[in-house]
């Protein structure tokens, strides 16, 4: 114990304790501390009276306001659904062209579709829908399974090569690995396919090679991609005459595709999205390609 002293700075007395040179002042507890203890306690008291708060043996105090978080959530979901039901029922009742003609309804479809796309589709197709290797670009106007809302809605519902029973199915055979075509044939047909979208490849020197490739193409590829190689949206066979390539358009990428085949996958969304959500997404995705979108007449 040290002697009780007066601290020259504050004028307070010390307690007389000495802890390895540390002294303590005998300052009373500031009134503001007591004040705020009382204030926070009163706040708590009011909250306890109003809200569910204290446990009893088999139940708990329910609170004067009768609020419970479960009923609160249910009520707010109900209110939100009621607010949306006005235009959602409109959406369900109208057909594609009626909706597309209704500017106010389409504004809501685009707003909601944008969010639905971000949360469900962007993982593969990219935030702006431009896709990537193996994942189609939805903005280029080139549609593998058709670009009108009805076709898109069907793709969303059943997916491609998915687990759904009525899934869209498409597979490109592995012409090289399965021994259907030899190396020279693959090389020739790849060159021919490239020449369809890049006329600069067709020169007098390569005429022979292109002719051979065209022969291979006629024998092996036209059943899906068509005689003019413009593809077939009923079979999910891509158009090979444009500059959009699902798996890449370089010589080596095309050879890889022909050699090993391709079988893309898109899940079925029927169980995960509500029918009106699929409807909105189909309408939204149909607008992503802008004015240049292909329609049914592209398939033969």
């Amino acid at each position, binding site marked *: *114990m040290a002697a009780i002293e007066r*601290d020259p*700075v*504050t004028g307070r007395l*010390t*307690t007389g*304790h*000495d*802890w*390895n*040179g*540390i*002294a*303590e*002042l*005998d*300052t*009373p*507890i*500031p009134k503001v*501390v007591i004040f*705020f*203890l009382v204030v*926070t*306690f009163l*706040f*708590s008291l009011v*909250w*306890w009276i109003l*809200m*569910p*708060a*204290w*446990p009893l043996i088999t139940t*708990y*105090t329910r*609170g004067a306001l009768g*609020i*419970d*978080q*479960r009923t609160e959530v249910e009520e707010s979901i109900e209110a*939100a659904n009621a*607010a*949306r039901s006005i*235009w959602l029922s409109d959406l369900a009742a109208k057909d594609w062209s009626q909706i597309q003609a209704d500017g106010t309804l389409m504004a*809501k479809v685009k*707003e*909601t579709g*944008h*969010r*639905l*796309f*971000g*949360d469900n589709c*962007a*993982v593969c197709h990219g*935030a702006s829908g431009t896709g990537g290797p193996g994942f189609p670009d939805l903005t280029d106007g080139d549609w593998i399974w058709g670009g009108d809302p009805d076709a898109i809605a069907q793709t969303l519902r059943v997916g491609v090569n998915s687990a759904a029973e009525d899934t869209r199915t498409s597979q490109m055979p592995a012409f090289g690995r399965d021994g259907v075509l030899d190396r020279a044939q693959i090389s020739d047909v790849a060159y021919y396919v490239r020449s369809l979208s890049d006329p600069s490849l067709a020169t007098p020197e390569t005429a022979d090679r292109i002719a051979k490739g065209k022969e291979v193409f006629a024998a092996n590829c036209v059943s899906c991609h068509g005689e003019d190689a413009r593809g077939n949206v009923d079979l999910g066979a891509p158009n090979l005459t444009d500059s959009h390539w699902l798996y890449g358009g370089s010589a080596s990428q095309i050879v890889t595709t022909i050699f090993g085949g391709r079988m893309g996958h898109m899940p079925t969304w029927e169980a995960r999205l509500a029918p009106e959500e699929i409807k909105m997404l189909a309408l939204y995705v149909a607008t992503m390609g802008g004015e240049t979108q292909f329609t049914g007449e592209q398939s033969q």
Partner: protein
Amino acid sequence: MIRQLTSGERRSAATILVALVIVGLAMAAAGRADTLGVHGAIVFLYSLVLLFLVLSVIFDPEPEPSRLSQYYDDPSKVGIVLTMIWAIFGMGVGVWVAAQLAWPELAFDAAWSSFGRLRPAHTTGVIFGFGGNALIATSFHVLQRTSRARLADQLSPWFVVFGYNLFCILAVSGYFMGITQSKEYAEAEWYADIWLVVVWVTYFVLFIRTLARRKEPHIYVANWYYMAFILVVAVLHIVNNIAVPVSLTGAKSYSIYSGVQDAMVQWWYGHNAVAFFLTAGFLGMLYYYLPKRAERPIFSYRLSIISFWGITFFYMWAGSHHLHYTALPHWVQTLGMTFSVMLLVPSWASAGNALATLNGAWHKVRDDATLRFIMVASVFYGLTTFEGSFLAIRPVNGLSHYTDWTVGHVHAGALGWVAFITFGSLYSVIPWLWKKKAMYSARLVEVHFWLALMGTIIYVFAMWNSGILQGLMWRTYNDSGTLAFSFLETVIAMHPYYIARAFGGLLFLAGAIVGTYNLYMTIRYTPEDATEKAAGDLPVPGRGEAVAAGE
């Protein structure tokens, strides 16, 4: 250092280590088909190295009896060096994991370096490795000085320091291998948890025995805080980690709690780990090193006492505020929220008591970066506890929960409060323990201070911005009644803040590296202080010593 142990203590140490070597071998053999085997090998090697160190001096002569009239500081010195090693490890992993959020490629496609494994390595490295070692080292120092008594024996402090670090190594190495019981801040598996109980009980017994030898009539408030830290952490750790191992030869176990009970027990643990590990223990530090460094009396003895009991009482109720708007019954949430609000008063009373103690010493705060570390820690303690009570209010939590705001809040506490008070305390205690006049370089302390302060401010501001932005984006509806933003858009909006956060963390890490260099240079190259003041740092001789000599 081991020569300071009596031959009896050296034999006891060797016996314990031989037992641990056998345990390690048994774990390695039984768990050879599992990751447990790797941990067996770590236990084996760790105790084997220590065993060799002990055996190398086992037949050396007995230490001088005069040592018993001095404080026993060797375990504190080792603890301080380990504190800084863990600081660099834990904060280094923190910077890495922060950078991964901005640039995910930094996971390098490996399992061990994925975010989910690095993140607990960061939190355990800083909370338990850095914070825990700092608490143990300073608690031994403060306890002896404020009790004017030497530690009760010489073996158990070493058992605590090395046993505790073995736990930390098992925990962190386990996360890299994918060993986790998936409880936040309690990820270590059952065998590591059992080991920590043994270590922690030894720590508590040592603390109480030393306290019982005190030559002062009362127990200083710092020791109340340290004692609450040790006792409550033991209770929390045991209750939260009760689990059933799948097999004694495997690392995996399952908690005995499930569903919302599991969540409640976890957050009762989690929030009181904040309260008693990251608050009470470090308030113990504050209450010793602040008045010592400022050379000022504590502003109010009464305020320290009521704050202590206020903090310990209110914190116990607050954990459920981590589970607002969940399956937890509404009434439990109400209690958690209201007690969190009341908790603000004793928290601010402590912060105020600390700052008011500096009255009459503000010129020292201006000139002395070490004292400034402690001052800024008190300010951040006040800020963080205010923010904590605010975030615990249910509607506020509706905005902040699951966002980066929580991360910012935690780091305002962990960087601004815990790490600042630790660095301030270490810069105070290092020259005292190693009997040096001062740190090797006061300028480097100054550099560390500004790096740490800039890092903390950049970090916290980045997370406030990103957290509030994130919370608002998650809840914004458009006119159609749908959420305006997809989740992906909210992630893209976070990117600049994540870069800023990683940069803030990098500055903080750089400060810790400067501090470690300063520590090294102080220990190795700074001349000893031969003045009377350094020589007078001795316990009061008395009845305790006769007992100690016979122990």
